[in-house]
C-alpha cells in the first residue's frame, strides 16, 4: 500500500501543527465558533449530540495492520474503546474532546494517517472497491488512480471552499462495488480502442434529499489527462455551483439544471484551456504510484484446497460462513474474506479496540498485514490462502466476528442516527438491531441472500438508503419517529433509486413491516430470484397491498 515519503510526512505534521494552533486560538477565544467551524471540519472534527466526533481518513479503505493498531490505541486512550466504520470507508470516533484533537492527530500522523478533508466543503475521501487488486473482473487496479487523485486533491488551494462537499469514487471493473454511480464524480477504468488504459468519467450522482444517478460525461479519457480533466470539472462547479441554498448546492443539481450536454460543453471548454504540464500524468509518475500497490508475495497454490473442501463437509457452521463471506480471488488457491461487523442484534459497523488489535494480528498472520474497509461497513482480509481459511474462521468466531451474513438480510447498513448525530431526525441503530434479531431466523430458514437493508436517520442518507434493496428513512412526525420504506434501490452497476412504498411506520411497527415485505417476497419469488429482481418483476403493488390493505 502507499507509504509516505518525507514530503507526505512533512505535510501531515505541518497540517497537524497548524490545527493545533487553530485549536489553541479557539480555546483561548481568539476564534469564534463561526470562524473555527470550517477549520475544524476541514480536519474531520464534528460537533455531535454528546461530544465531538472525529472522522479519520482511510484512503480508499486501505489500512495496514499497524495503522489498525494505531486506531485501537486512539479508541482506548481518547475515546470509549470503540470506533465506527462508515459508508465512505472511513472510521469515526464518537467521544472526542476538542482539547485532545491535536494530540490525536499527532498520533495519527505517526502512523501515516490523518483526518484531512473528511468533512467540509472540499474534496473528500476517494473511495473504491474493497476487492481492488484481487478481483478477477478488474480491468486495472483502481487504487493507484485513487491515490493519484487523493494527492492532487489534498489541500487544493482553489477547491477548499466549494459550494458543498465533493465525493469521488473509482472503480476498476464493469461490476460496481463502490457505488460509483451515486457519487459527484465517478471514475471507471476502461480500455481505449488500442487497448490502452483510460477512464469513463461520470458526473452528478448523489443521495441526500434529492437522489440522482451520475451521467456519463466522457466515454474515454486518456490516462495522462485524469487530473487536468478533474480540475476542469471542479473549476466549473466552484464557479457555477449554487451557493444560495444549502439543499441545492451539490454538483448533481448543477448538472441537472444545465443538462449534461451544456455541462459537458463548459467542462470541455475549460479543459481545453488547461495546459499546465504539472497536471499531466507521465508514465514515470504512474509507475511510481503503481509500485506501491504491487501484489503481495503469493505462494503457488493449486486452485482447490483439499483441506478447505474437507472442512466444509465436516463443519456446517464453517460451510455457512464460507458460502457467504468469501469472494473469489484472481490468484489460484486464495480467497478474499469479509469480516462481518454486523453481529446479530449488534450495532452495525462498530469494532472495539480489542477487536481491532485482534484483527490486526490476524491480518499479519493471514493476509500480508493488510485490511480493507468496505462501504458497507465491513472489513476485508483480501489475500487468505484457502487451506488456512478454517483456522482464520475459528479465530474470527472467537472474536464474535464470524457472522456468516455478507450481503444477506442481516448485513444491515445503518448510520449513527439520533443516538449520536446532531443532524438526525430519528434513531437508526435500535431499528437495525431489532431487525437483525427478527430476521436472522427467517434468513436461516428461507435463504435471504443478496438483500441489503439500509437505514438512515435523516434525509442526508449517510447509509445510502436510496440505493438499498430495502431502504428505511427515519423522519420525525408529530414528535415521534416515523420510518419511510423504499424498495428496489441498487448501488451496483444496475444502479437504481428505490421508490417509496407508502406512508411511514412508527418505531414499534417498522420491524413488522419489513418482515411483511420479506414474507411477500418469499411468496412471489421465482426460481430463487433475488429480492431486487422480484421487485422489478412484480412491482410495488403486492408489497403495498400486504402492508396497507385492510384484509
Amino acid at each position: 500500500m502507499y507509504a509516505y515519503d518525507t514530503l507526505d510526512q512533512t505535510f501531515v505534521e505541518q497540517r497537524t501543527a497548524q490545527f493545533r494552533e487553530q485549536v489553541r486560538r479557539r480555546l483561548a477565544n481568539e476564534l469564534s465558533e463561526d470562524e473555527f467551524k470550517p477549520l475544524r471540519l476541514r480536519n474531520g472534527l464534528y460537533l455531535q449530540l454528546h461530544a465531538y466526533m472525529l472522522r479519520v481518513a482511510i484512503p480508499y479503505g486501505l489500512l495496514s495492520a499497524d495503522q489498525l493498531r494505531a486506531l485501537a490505541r486512539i479508541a482506548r486512550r481518547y475515546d470509549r474503546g470503540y470506533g465506527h466504520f462508515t459508508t465512505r470507508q472511513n472510521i469515526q470516533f464518537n467521544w472526542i474532546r476538542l482539547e485532545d484533537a491535536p494530540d490525536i492527530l499527532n498520533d495519527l500522523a505517526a502512523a501515516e494517517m490523518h483526518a484531512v478533508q473528511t468533512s467540509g466543503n472540499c474534496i473528500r475521501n476517494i473511495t473504491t472497491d474493497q476487492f481492488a487488486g484481487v478481483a478477477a473482473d478488474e480491468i486495472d487496479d483502481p487504487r493507484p488512480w485513487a491515490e493519484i487523485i487523493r494527492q492532487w486533491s489534498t489541500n487544493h488551494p482553489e477547491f477548499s471552499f466549494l459550494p458543498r462537499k465533493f465525493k469521488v469514487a473509482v472503480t476498476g471493473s464493469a461490476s460496481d462495488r463502490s457505488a460509483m454511480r451515486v457519487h459527484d464524480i465517478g471514475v471507471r477504468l476502461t480500455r481505449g480502442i488500442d487497448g490502452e488504459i483510460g477512464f469513463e468519467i461520470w458526473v452528478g450522482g448523489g443521495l441526500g434529499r434529492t437522489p440522482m444517478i451520475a451521467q456519463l460525461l466522457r466515454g474515454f479519457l486518456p490516462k495522462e489527462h485524469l487530473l487536468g480533466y478533474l480540475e476542469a470539472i471542479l473549476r466549473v462547479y466552484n464557479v457555477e455551483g449554487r451557493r444560495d441554498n444549502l439543499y441545492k448546492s451539490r454538483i448533481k443539481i448543477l448538472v441537472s439544471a444545465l443538462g449534461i450536454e451544456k455541462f459537458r460543453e463548459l467542462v470541455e471548454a475549460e479543459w481545453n484551456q488547461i495546459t499546465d504540464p504539472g497536471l499531466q500524468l507521465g508514465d514515470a509518475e504512474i509507475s511510481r504510484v503503481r509500485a506501491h500497490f504491487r501484489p503481495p508475495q503469493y505462494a503457488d497454490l493449486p486452485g482447490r484446497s483439499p483441506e478447505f473442501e474437507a472442512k466444509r463437509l465436516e463443519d456446517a457452521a464453517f460451510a455457512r460462513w464460507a458460502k457467504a463471506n468469501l469472494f473469489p480471488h484472481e490468484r489460484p488457491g486464495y480467497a478474499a474474506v469479509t469480516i462481518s461487523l454486523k453481529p446479530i442484534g449488534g450495532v452495525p459497523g462498530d469494532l472495539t479496540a480489542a477487536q481491532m488489535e485482534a484483527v490486526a494480528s490476524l491480518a499479519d498472520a493471514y493476509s500480508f498485514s493488510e485490511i480493507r474497509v468496505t462501504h458497507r461497513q465491513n472489513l476485508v482480509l483480501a489475500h487468505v490462502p484457502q487451506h488456512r481459511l478454517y483456522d482464520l474462521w475459528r479465530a474470527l468466531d472467537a472474536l464474535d466476528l464470524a457472522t456468516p451474513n455478507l450481503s444477506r438480510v442481516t448485513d444491515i447498513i445503518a448510520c449513527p442516527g439520533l443516538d449520536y448525530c446532531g443532524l438526525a431526525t430519528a434513531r437508526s441503530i435500535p431499528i437495525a438491531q431489532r431487525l437483525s434479531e427478527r430476521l436472522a431466523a427467517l434468513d436461516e430458514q428461507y435463504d435471504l441472500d443478496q438483500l441489503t437493508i439500509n437505514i438512515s436517520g435523516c434525509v442526508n442518507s449517510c447509509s445510502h438508503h436510496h440505493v438499498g434493496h430495502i431502504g428505511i428513512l427515519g423522519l420525525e412526525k408529530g414528535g415521534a419517529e416515523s420510518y419511510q420504506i423504499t424498495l428496489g434501490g441498487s448501488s451496483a452497476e444496475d444502479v437504481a433509486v428505490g421508490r417509496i412504498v407508502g406512508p411511514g411506520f412508527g418505531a414499534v411497527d417498522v420491524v413488522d413491516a419489513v418482515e411483511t415485505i420479506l414474507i411477500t417476497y418469499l411468496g412471489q419469488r421465482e426460481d430463487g430470484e433475488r429480492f431486487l429482481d422480484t421487485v422489478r418483476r412484480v412491482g410495488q403493488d403486492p408489497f403495498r397491498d400486504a402492508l396497507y390493505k385492510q384484509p
Partner: protein
Amino acid sequence: MQIIRLIAGQPVTDIDVWARIGDDDPLPESAPALVSLARWQSAGAGLARRNVAVGVWLASDEVLDGLISDLERLDLIALDFPNLNDGRHFTTARLLRERHGFRGEIRATGQVLRDQLFAMARCGFDSFELQAHQDTAAAHEAFSEISVVFQPAADGRAAAQAIRAGGAGAHASAS
C-alpha cells in the same frame, strides 16, 4: 487600513493607499482609486486616462469576462469574499494569473481569515485586507505553515509529484 502584501513571496504589513470609491462619488485627484466593475464598464476609458493608479473590485458573483481586454490598464483587482464559505474568487485569481497573465496586484477583501491566506497566496493573491480584530503580525506565519504542496497553482511552487520526478521545478523544493 492595514493590509498584508506579499513582496517576493514574503508577507509585509503595509498601509493601504487605495480608496474604494462609491459608484456615484467623484474620483480622487491623485490617490489610487478602486471602483466597482459596473463603474469601470461604463466609464472605463475615462478612468484609464488618469495618471494615477486605477483598480476594479469584483463582488463574489462577478466574473472576469468583461474585464479581460482591459487588464493591462489595471493596477489592482480586488476580489471580495462575503463570507467564509464563498470560494469563487480562488478560481478568479488563478485565472487572472495563469490564464490571462495579469501582473498587477490581486487583493482579497471582505471576510478574509488568516487561515485562508496560504490557499489565497497559492491562487495568486498578493495582498490581503484582514478584518479589524485579527492579529496582522501573527497572520504572517500563515504563509509559511505548510511547505509541501500536491498540485500546481498560480504560485509556481513545485508540487510533490514534480519534486519526486526530479523534473522541472524540482530544484524549488519544499521551501
